């Protein structure tokens, strides 16, 4: 079978499975399952962008959750002032792109540990600054009472609407990224991840591409943040600090960042693991918050990095190859 057709079949299967899921599950669990699936789609879209930035382009930027948070906050503040939802989302995306340009241009000259340290510092700066801004961001309580998303007169709210909206966003992101990585832009990104000197020597504008991919993923994170704040209808400084960073890194590592779909797979697995932890351990443990989740995710990160560096996607690849070998042996015999 041709690989293109195989990929097409895979896409059809995923889209149909996602499309009919709310109608298949029993009505009692529908709200719960669609709710969790919304979060999976949004975190998945976020992790997809982070995967491209970290693993495909090799820019170890830990500030990804900040763009998500800034996007969510700008959208929320504008929507609460009565600006139409679409306009708020677009203004948030443009301002995040602008910020990412200003910050990224000098920052992306750094490499390796230093880039990671600087972006980690950036993450914490945003984390500390947002509650300090007082009345604009609502301090530690965050933004409360964000109006629902309305597009051209239709008011979208509730799990069912957002289920299709967020999965559309997430699969759209995956489709966009998989096309992007096969374009000139994507090949350039991969080339400077492998060897910066070699790609410079054949005329790739490395610093330009680095800045472009940084801004692109920042804008994608801002879009996800906008939908996130319209979905849960509030924004809180605790939502996108250090715990979210650990969570996203876990998704990327569990799914396997070397493949494009890995982070989405990781988001699916990790959020269901989190739900299981909340259901079964919620009563046993004295406190249950994002930091406790981050603890479990920390354990998962360490175990996966030591025993299964390729993540689930790498493991699947190995499984498929082993299956092919077995089939070949049978064919020969």
């Amino acid at each position, binding site marked *: 079978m041709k690989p293109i057709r195989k990929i097409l079949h895979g896409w059809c299967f995923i889209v149909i499975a996602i499309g009919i899921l709310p109608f298949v599950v029993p009505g009692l669990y529908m709200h719960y399952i669609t709710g969790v699936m919304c979060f999976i789609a949004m975190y998945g879209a976020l992790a997809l962008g982070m995967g491209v930035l*970290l693993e495909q382009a090799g820019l*170890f930027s830990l500030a990804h959750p900040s763009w998500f948070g800034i996007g969510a906050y700008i959208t929320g503040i504008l929507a609460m002032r009565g600006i139409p939802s679409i306009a708020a989302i677009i203004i948030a995306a443009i301002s995040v792109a602008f910020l990412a340009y200003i910050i990224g241009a*000098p*920052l992306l*000259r*750094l490499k*390796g*540990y*230093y880039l*990671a*340290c*600087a972006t*980690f*510092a*950036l993450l*914490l*700066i945003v984390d*500390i*600054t947002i509650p*300090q801004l007082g009345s604009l961001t609502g301090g530690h309580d965050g933004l409360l009472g964000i109006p629902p998303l309305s597009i051209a007169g239709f008011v979208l709210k509730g799990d069912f609407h957002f289920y299709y909206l967020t999965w559309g966003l997430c699969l759209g992101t995956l489709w966009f990224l998989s096309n992007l990585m096969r374009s000139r832009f994507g090949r350039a990104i991969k080339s400077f991840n492998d060897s910066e000197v070699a790609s410079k020597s054949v005329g790739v504008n490395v610093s330009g591409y680095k800045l472009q991919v940084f801004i692109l993923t920042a804008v994608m994170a801002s879009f996800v943040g906008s939908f996130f704040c319209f979905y849960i209808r509030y924004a809180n400084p605790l939502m996108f600090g*250090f*715990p979210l960073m*650990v969570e996203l*890194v*876990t998704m990327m*590592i569990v799914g396997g960042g070397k493949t494009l779909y890995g982070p989405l797979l990781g988001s699916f697995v990790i959020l269901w693991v989190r739900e299981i932890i909340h259901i079964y351990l919620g009563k046993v*443990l*004295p*406190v249950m918050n994002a*930091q*406790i989740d*981050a*603890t*479990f*995710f*920390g*354990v998962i*990160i*360490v175990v996966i*990095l*030591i025993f299964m*560096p390729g993540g689930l996607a790498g493991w699947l690849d190995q499984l498929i190859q082993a299956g092919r070998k077995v089939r070949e042996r049978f064919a020969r015999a």
Partner: protein
Amino acid sequence: MTLFSVVVQYAISGITDGSIYAIIGICWSVVYLITKVLNFTTGEFVMLGGMLTWGFHRLGLGVFPASLIAVATTICIAIVIERATIRPVRYPSEMTYMMITIALASIIKGIVLLKWGTEVRKIDPFFGTDVLHIFGAAITPQVLCVLGFLIIVTVGLTWFLNYTFFGKALRASAINLTGAKLVGININKFRLFCFGLAGGLGAMTGIVTTPITFTGYQIGMLTGLKGLVAAIVGGWGIMGTVISALALGLLEGFCAGFISTGFKDVLALLVMIIFLIIRTYSITAKLRRTSS
């Protein structure tokens, strides 16, 4: 209080903070130079030192035995971390190490949160609470204790690294790892030793500072990062780290005093970002080019 005494007061609190950052910065650089691992659990060692001492103290031990046990426990934890999670990594890269240590920091934080909750904990000062007055500013004996600890650590480490056989071997392997291996230095032992040293120093810092700044499950990350700022700005050496840490502490102290306490934590992180960016522009090379 006159303006002068206010300034002195801020300077004292700045120098206290600065000496804390200096010791933490030394912990970072000891591990980084030998193993090339940026150990993000350094801050958690500081937190563990304070919290464990408080925990053992609450069980009925005196402060001194409690702190000894806390330091020993932290050293064991640091060594276990190196042996069980850093060494077995199959494809070691900077990113893998960094993710693992960040994950470990998160695990330590979560366990402490589960065990002892979110409350701020404190230990009584070691030498009472009598206040000394200098130029109208107040100093508690605990501050002097922190300063003394910094001096002991700096002098002790400098002596150890320059005048003992083991220390010289350690410096050699920091300069050239392959060369050190070739002359028969056992790198694996050194890696364990460095993690243990960082854990022990971190825990002692935590114990000495707990009476002043108190401790809680969440203090590790920021305190640790400020130490990292000092280590990076100081160029990973002992004297450089101490000087830059004291400068950072003074900057923070005056910022907190005269501008706003809320943005005190942001300042150190901003300093790091700006320093790292300026570093890439290599000003000296540019000056040379324009003058010639």
